[in-house]
């Protein structure tokens, strides 16, 4: 299948997940919100752990079915990975969402906050890659 088609189909599956979560539990499928709640003392922990279990198992299931999990290798060395993780954690908590909560669910709701957040994190992501790859010469693994 063409990569574009696979990507669009993957997007549809993500959308179906968001619809299912809204239709049954009334929750937004925001990963930083779901997982972050577990790190910061949310009391409704059961469904959060269950969602994360499904999320982690899915690529393994795919690997079993077609021999390829779809999981790629890290592209940068470990200090960059550590720094990136910290920034993603602090940023998504402060900003109240990530690519899923703001980028997918928020834009689907036409939330002005989510539109603004998505614009900002895509633009700063683009700027960061530009600086690292084209001005500093890369953060090689």
């Amino acid at each position, binding site marked *: 299948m063409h990569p574009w088609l696979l990507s669009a189909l993957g*997007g549809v599956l993500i959308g179906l997940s968001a619809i299912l979560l809204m239709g049954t539990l009334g929750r*937004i499928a925001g990963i930083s919100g779901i997982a972050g709640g577990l790190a910061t003392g949310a009391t409704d922990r059961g469904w959060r752990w269950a969602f*994360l279990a499904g999320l*982690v198992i899915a690529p393994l299931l795919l690997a079993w079915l077609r021999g390829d999990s779809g999981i790629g290798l890290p592209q940068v060395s470990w200090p960059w990975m550590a720094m990136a993780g*910290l920034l993603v954690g602090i940023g*998504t908590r402060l900003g109240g969402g990530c690519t899923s909560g703001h980028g997918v669910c928020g834009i689907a709701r036409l939330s002005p906050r989510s539109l603004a957040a998505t614009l900002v994190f895509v633009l700063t992501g683009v700027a960061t890659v530009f600086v690292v790859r084209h001005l500093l010469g890369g953060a090689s693994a």
Partner: protein
Amino acid sequence: MKIAVAILAGLLFGLGLSISGMTQPAVVLGFLDVAGQWNSRLLFVMAGAVLTTAIGYRLVWQRGRPSFGGAFLMPAPQRVDGRLLLGAALFGIGWGLAGYCPGPALASLGAGLWPVGLLVLMMVVGWWLAAKLPVRRDEKAARLNP
């Protein structure tokens, strides 16, 4: 039942991420690299996800309430403020450094790659640290979700 639908939703989400290329940081960084060999796949992921969700949400909301919960929990509408923009900017920088946003980072844990484990660990530390920052009362609602 709540647990079962949450697992199913997680599975769908994880399958979507892994077939779409989102769990390949090379693809994600390629999308953000507009000055290099631009990879457009993420655009198709976003289009597929947003359109599906936009249509499905409206159908689901017409039913009035969720099947197993009390009400549809959504962030109270608020203005775009400095905290939102600063958070989004920090997130974008972290995303651009390694090519992982929270979903793909967590979904990649099963591959047993230790640098991904390190990134997730630091992400959890980040969530915990940011939760210690003082919050204005009107922001609390939005921070429950998404």
